């Protein structure tokens, strides 16, 4: 289903949605782009993508799982509920929406994780086509179409008069049933609004099939990984900013008379991540860097037939020592 909406009406629509859901839109906080509760502000034109991926709204950096207390002196363990309440996020990018699907495959498999899955199902994902190619990104090489996506409930394309909207789910269809705000549109009109993001490359950086094969082939090549990881300082920012990184730790917080267990982000970049009583299989830095790249481009593909990277470029743009994943992939594919 295709619809169009004027800019002012979009704001009105989002404002009205606030009576039924928490509505988040792009906003700057402390100088950095993020998603914040919608307060009637204009939808920003210069928003490319959020500094932190939206994964934290689904896989929280810290999530309380259950608690224990001692009512009447005896231990009692009580589950903590998954988050409730509808949410609408507007302005999400195709790369980050794909990442949420990738995370879903992990958190739904074998032992469904109610916390992640509920966050996903209670959120309406409203995407927006990119106007500018992000710095450091290689999304198109990773098979992400910055102008179209089926990973949303509704996908929007900006046009001079406002936005074209394409509903992709039943929930999306239902949301577009505001005839007072949305006008009819068509596939033809939708196709005409297709644009090319500013700064996008004419030629792809690499061929994904060759990268996949190359990373697999490079796994035993110790020198390859040592060479690239030499300048890594194990800060973990690449995993923190990555929309698909999901490694976590389980920790206890004990307070007088009560406590809770929480799940918090962890990182394969940290040396103690795999430290055991007498042995650490990934004590050396090159092994940890190899694990990160191989997991995303090789092991994950073997297990899920998908690559756990969407080419958003956050790890490239924000690495403090300029360790450029694209160079590693290019070299592996050589």
């Amino acid at each position, binding site marked *: 289903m295709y619809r169009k909406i004027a800019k002012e009406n979009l704001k009105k629509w989002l404002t009205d949605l606030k009576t039924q*859901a928490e509505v988040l839109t792009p906003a700057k906080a402390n100088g950095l782009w993020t998603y914040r509760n919608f307060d009637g502000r204009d939808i920003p034109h210069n928003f490319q993508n959020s500094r932190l991926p939206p994964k934290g709204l689904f896989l929280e950096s810290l999530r309380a799982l*259950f608690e224990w207390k001692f009512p009447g002196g005896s231990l009692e363990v009580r589950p903590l509920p998954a988050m409730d309440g509808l949410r609408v996020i507007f302005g999400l990018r195709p790369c980050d929406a794909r990442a949420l699907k990738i995370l879903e495959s992990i*958190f739904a498999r074998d032992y469904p994780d109610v916390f992640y899955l509920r966050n996903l199902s209670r959120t309406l994902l409203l995407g927006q086509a990119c106007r500018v190619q992000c710095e450091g990104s290689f999304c198109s090489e990773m098979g992400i179409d910055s102008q179209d996506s089926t990973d949303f409930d509704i996908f929007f394309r900006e046009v001079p008069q406002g936005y074209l909207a394409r509903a992709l789910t039943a929930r999306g269809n239902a*949301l577009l049933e505001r005839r007072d705000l949305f006008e009819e549109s068509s596939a033809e009109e939708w196709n005409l609004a297709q644009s090319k993001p500013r700064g996008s490359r004419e030629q792809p950086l690499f061929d994904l099939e060759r990268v996949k094969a190359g990373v697999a082939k490079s796994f035993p090549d110790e020198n390859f990984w040592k060479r690239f990881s030499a300048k890594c300082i194990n800060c973990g920012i690449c995993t923190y900013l990555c929309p698909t990184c999901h490694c976590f730790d389980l920790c206890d917080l004990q307070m007088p008379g009560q406590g809770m267990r929480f799940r918090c982000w962890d990182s394969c970049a940290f040396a103690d991540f795999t430290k055991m009583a007498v042995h650490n299989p990934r004590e050396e830095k090159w092994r940890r860097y190899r694990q990160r790249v191989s997991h995303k481009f090789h092991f994950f593909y073997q297990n899920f037939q998908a690559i756990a990277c969407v080419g958003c470029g956050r790890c490239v743009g924000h690495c403090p020592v300029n360790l450029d994943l694209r160079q590693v992939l290019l070299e592996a594919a050589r």
Partner: protein
Amino acid sequence: MNSLKTDDSAREKNIYQPHLMEIIKVISETGDTKTFHIQFVEPSLRETFSFLSGQFAEYSVFGEGEAPFCISSSPTRPDHLEFSVKRIGRVTHALHQLNPGDLIGFRGPYGNHFPLDRLKGKNLLFIGGGIGLAPLRSLIHNVLDNRTDYGDITILYGARSPQDLCFKYDLETWGRNPLVKMIITVDVGDADWRGKVGLVPVVLEEIGASPNGAVAITCGPPIMIRYTLKSLEKLSFSPSQIWTTLEMKMKCGLGKCGRCNIGPLYVCKDGPVFSLEEILHFSSDEF
């Protein structure tokens, strides 16, 4: 807007929340190793819980954390569960402080199990070292409780010293069983030690177990396993005749937290039990 909601009812289970278990008995195996006998607090779980030899569980000391250990008792003896813990880190120290009547958390069972159907009719050679006897013990009891399904049973068990031998009560019972060939060895004996002295792989070659119709199942410290595999090779055991259970840093036990992978395999889900044939085909040496 309620129609916009998705039905989540099938996914409501909190996979991280453990069941409460009461410690009913604590046995000091050695100076730093204890065995805990535990039972579900919830009576219905005592009836419905089931597991297979080789599987593990996550055990919680609330406020200190959670750690994975194999279930060292056998499913053929379902009265209670047992697990054994060497005092090494934070959770194991906390466990060692506990007494009968104390409550712990239990999630499981997780992982795969020993391939019982592939062991039936075979001569079984168990090779254990130190606390590594714990997972084998579950299988040994399982096999002894269905003794007629199997051929000869040989148990070779070693520890650093007589004081480091775990499960002495089992060793005695097995030693008295005419249908079990039991060999105990220590690296270094003492004045009272009358048994064998020698490293497990060396004693293994001495007893010269035959690979014909046999399967070897081993668990112990990494160094012992490494040389035991070499000795088994000398004795002409093929990789598909050798099984072991691997230890990796596991945290969630659910294949999600990202620690225990060896290449694409997750020890918590695809293991912990592997044949040597599988191990030789691992794409990674990181274990």
